[in-house]
């Protein structure tokens, strides 16, 4: 057992612990992972004998595998890879004895990992997908982590802190293009339920599929030419996830609600990746007729507001009412601020509309929607994200970077014949952030280096999500169809064969690497040179040293004395002197080549001489 074994195994434990940090504790599988890690650490603490240490190494590998199933994203995957590398090095340190040092151990363990790649690739490409682990009995999402929340009561918020925390990223691979900046409204929640003060989402929570029930059939894949929006969201407590409002989900655990909310079966407390198509036409939810709940307004809460809206209610159509409200809004000195101060409990919206006229998006959306309902127009509040920065990472495809500061709320009103229309009253207010962004230009100049690095990382992250996590069962089936055509029943055989082949290739490669390592490059060079001489009938005698053999060679080929001296001298110095030169290998290769070439040319000239003078 090498002395490096214990530090390596503890290092692995540390890496696994870091990997555990990102797990949602509500997931039963992550509890299993926590338990396994604690067990392994305790076992490592008490392990003395080689057998116990072996058990620890195997537990660590199982733990890393479990983590890999739970966290397939790029960052955690790298961490898991590192942990597996260390665990393997620890195992090798146990098995290989005291000989190899850290560097040799890590190199060998890297070789083992690389040798396992073909098998991993075969399994990844061909083995039928399990359903995502995150579908197993997940608990409720934790409390609000984002700038969005199920319920919205802007009047109670005196001051809104701007958080630059990352919220989500969306990319448009397959030729899809991001919408123009002023059209970037990413909807998440639809608040239809209003009690006079607070807006709530009306969509029913999706029941978790009971264990054992087959997953719903996957939706049809995107047809070629159809654009795709690929989302990568940070953990949030919400079951609704952002989307562009146009398109069709490509994953079975996403459901589109009638209200236009995209509901997610997986818990929101983990990062996740999902994809939708990107349709040019608007979705069905826009033409879904309003429900009674979209007109509900507790009377008497805000009398001045109701009085104002009643005047608009006499107008003939919803469109006219909307236009009247819009022009009224634009005529008032509203100002956008993040520190509007709290509104009174009594008639808060009256106070906002007619007294302070200070607020952020929540105030405007809430007040405007209430006005519309009071005027008899079906209306609701939608929250989500607005804008987002278009980032073009070096050497990658671009994506829109959404921060919590981009959280936004706006209104949707029902217009006959047009369906649900987006109205953003905040845009009418003075000092709106989007207006400022538009004025400043989309590019936020002067990105700090840390942000720049983070954006590059996210670029990689999203590429990983696209190529690696995006390879789902549909693509797999397509590949199988392409490979096997009508003989799909042979899949098992093919997988078995491919695994066996890659296993043989891996083991062969490992063996070759091991052999190559034992014969060092200097010696290989010598042997190559010796073979060249052996072909001319000169081989070293048993136990003969190189200088002695070289002397014999020089006697037979006096012309070779110079190159022989150079090669042998260099070889001997490399081998036996106290300070071998750094470039020794390359130099030996060069000198060996010179020697062999002079042997060939010397022979040729000799043959030529013999031909001329037989």
């Amino acid at each position, binding site marked *: 057992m090498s002395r490096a074994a214990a530090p390596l195994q503890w290092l692995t434990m540390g890496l696994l612990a870091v990997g555990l940090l990102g797990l949602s504790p509500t997931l039963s599988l992550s509890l299993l992972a926590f338990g396994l890690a604690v067990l392994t650490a305790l076992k490592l603490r008490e392990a003395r004998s080689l057998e116990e240490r072996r058990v620890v190494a195997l537990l660590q590998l199982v733990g890393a595998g479990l983590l890999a199933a739970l966290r397939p994203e790029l960052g955690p995957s790298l961490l898991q890879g590192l942990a597996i590398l260390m665990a393997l090095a620890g195992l090798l340190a146990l098995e290989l004895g005291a000989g190899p040092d850290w560097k040799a151990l890590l190199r060998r363990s890297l070789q083992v990992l690389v040798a396992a790649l073909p098998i991993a690739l075969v399994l990844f490409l061909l083995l039928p997908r399990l359903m995502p682990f995150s579908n197993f009995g997940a608990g409720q999402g934790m409390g609000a982590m984002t700038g969005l929340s199920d319920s919205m009561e802007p009047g109670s918020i005196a001051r809104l802190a701007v958080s630059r925390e990352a919220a989500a990223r969306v990319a448009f691979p397959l030729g899809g293009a991001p919408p123009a900046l002023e059209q970037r409204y990413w909807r998440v929640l639809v608040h239809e339920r209003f009690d006079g003060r607070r807006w709530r989402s009306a969509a029913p929570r999706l029941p978790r599929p009971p264990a054992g029930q087959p997953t719903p059939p996957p939706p049809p894949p995107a047809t070629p030419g159809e654009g795709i929006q690929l989302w990568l969201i940070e953990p949030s407590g919400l079951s609704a996830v952002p989307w562009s409002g146009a398109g069709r989900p490509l994953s079975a655990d996403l459901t589109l609600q009638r209200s236009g909310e995209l509901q997610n079966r997986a818990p929101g407390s983990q990062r996740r990746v999902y994809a939708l198509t990107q349709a040019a036409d608007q979705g069905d939810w826009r033409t879904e007729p309003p429900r009674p709940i979209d007109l509900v307004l507790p009377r008497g809460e805000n009398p001045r507001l109701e009085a104002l809206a009643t005047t608009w209610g006499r107008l003939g159509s919803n469109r006219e009412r909307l236009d009247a409200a819009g022009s009224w809004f634009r005529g008032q000195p509203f100002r956008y601020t993040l520190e509007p101060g709290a509104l009174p409990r009594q008639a808060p919206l009256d106070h906002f509309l007619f007294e302070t006229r200070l607020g952020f998006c929540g105030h405007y959306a809430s007040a405007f929607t209430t006005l519309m309902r009071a005027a008899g127009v079906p209306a609701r509040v939608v929250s989500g994200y607005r804008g987002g920065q278009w980032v073009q990472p070096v050497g990658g495809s671009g994506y829109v970077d959404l921060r919590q500061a981009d959280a936004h709320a706006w209104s949707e009103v029902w217009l006959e014949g047009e369906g649900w229309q987006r109205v953003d009253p905040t845009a009418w207010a003075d000092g709106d952030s989007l207006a400022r962004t538009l004025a400043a230009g989309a590019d936020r100049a002067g990105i700090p280096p840390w942000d720049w690095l983070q954006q590059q990382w996210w670029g990689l992250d999203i590429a990983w999500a696209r190529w690696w996590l995006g390879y789902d069962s549909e693509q797999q089936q397509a590949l199988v169809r392409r490979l096997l055509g009508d003989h799909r029943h042979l899949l098992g055989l093919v997988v078995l064969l491919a695994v066996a082949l890659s296993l043989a290739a891996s083991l062969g490669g490992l063996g070759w690497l091991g052999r190559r390592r034992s014969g060092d490059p200097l*010696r290989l060079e*010598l042997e190559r040179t*010796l073979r060249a001489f052996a072909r001319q009938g000169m081989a*070293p*005698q*048993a*136990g*003969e*040293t*190189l*200088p*002695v*053999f070289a002397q014999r060679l020089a006697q037979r080929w006096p012309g070779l004395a110079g190159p022989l001296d150079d090669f042998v001298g260099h070889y*001997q110095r490399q*081998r*036996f*002197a*106290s300070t071998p030169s750094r470039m020794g290998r390359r130099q030996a290769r060069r000198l060996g080549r010179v020697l062999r070439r002079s042997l060939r040319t010397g022979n040729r000239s000799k043959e030529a001489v013999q031909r001329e003078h037989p």
Partner: protein
Amino acid sequence: MISAIGAVLLGKEHQVRLALACLLARGHLLIEDLPGMGKTTLAEALARSFGLGFKRVSFTSDLLPADLTGLNVFDPGAASFHFQPGPLFSQVLLADEINRASPRTQSALLEAMAAGRVSVDGTSHPLPQPFLVIATQNGLDQGGTSALPESQLDRFLMRLSLGYPPRQAERALLQGEGLRPDDLSRTFGPEDLLELQARCDRQHCSAALLDYVLDLLERSRRQPGQGHPLSPRAGLALVAAARAWSLLQGRDHVIPDDVQAVLGAVCEHRMDGGQRGERDGELSQRLQAGIDGLR
């Protein structure tokens, strides 16, 4: 230096070199040969060229340990004993015909060789430095000899056999062209020898070279019927001698050629158990042929 001694010992350059290497490696030398082959001349020439004290003891069957080490003598004037050093207290000691002495005397000598000091009546007396014993022994087939046991043979770093000089050299000898050891001028001092011995220890032995030595040792232990296996002390002796040899070759590192040059002298007497075979050096040559010397 070597040529100077070579002028005394005509035609024996290799043996002179080995003897010198033995001296540099702080080892002791066993010369096995017939009388009249120049053993004494070699010992004296070595001693002289380093300016070392030289003594000679002819071992006979009645030689006692005290005759070598010296003894406490009562001094009537001081009314006390004082130590009278024996011939062992010299820098180069020629122990002639060591195998004619009794085993007890032999072992007294060999203990002094190993420990570098002599104990008489409970007092330790350090021997002078450097200290080199050149022992000669006659062939075991000659009368009045008792063989040195293997354990004592192991303490000699090298065994040499001078052999007859080549015809050319012998002609020069007969013509009186050779020098006598007395004619040698002192070229080095004892402190130079100590310095050279220290430099020997600094000669670089690379891992590849040690591997070569280890392969040799391992092979000697694995091959039954090819002589006695080599002890770890034999390995130490081999490396020390090879270091000295490489220094004599003017290199600062040891190569397998150095090991091969001293292999016969260092290992043959440890492998054949004192029974010299028909051909001297056969066992070590066979050993050498079994190990890849190219490295």
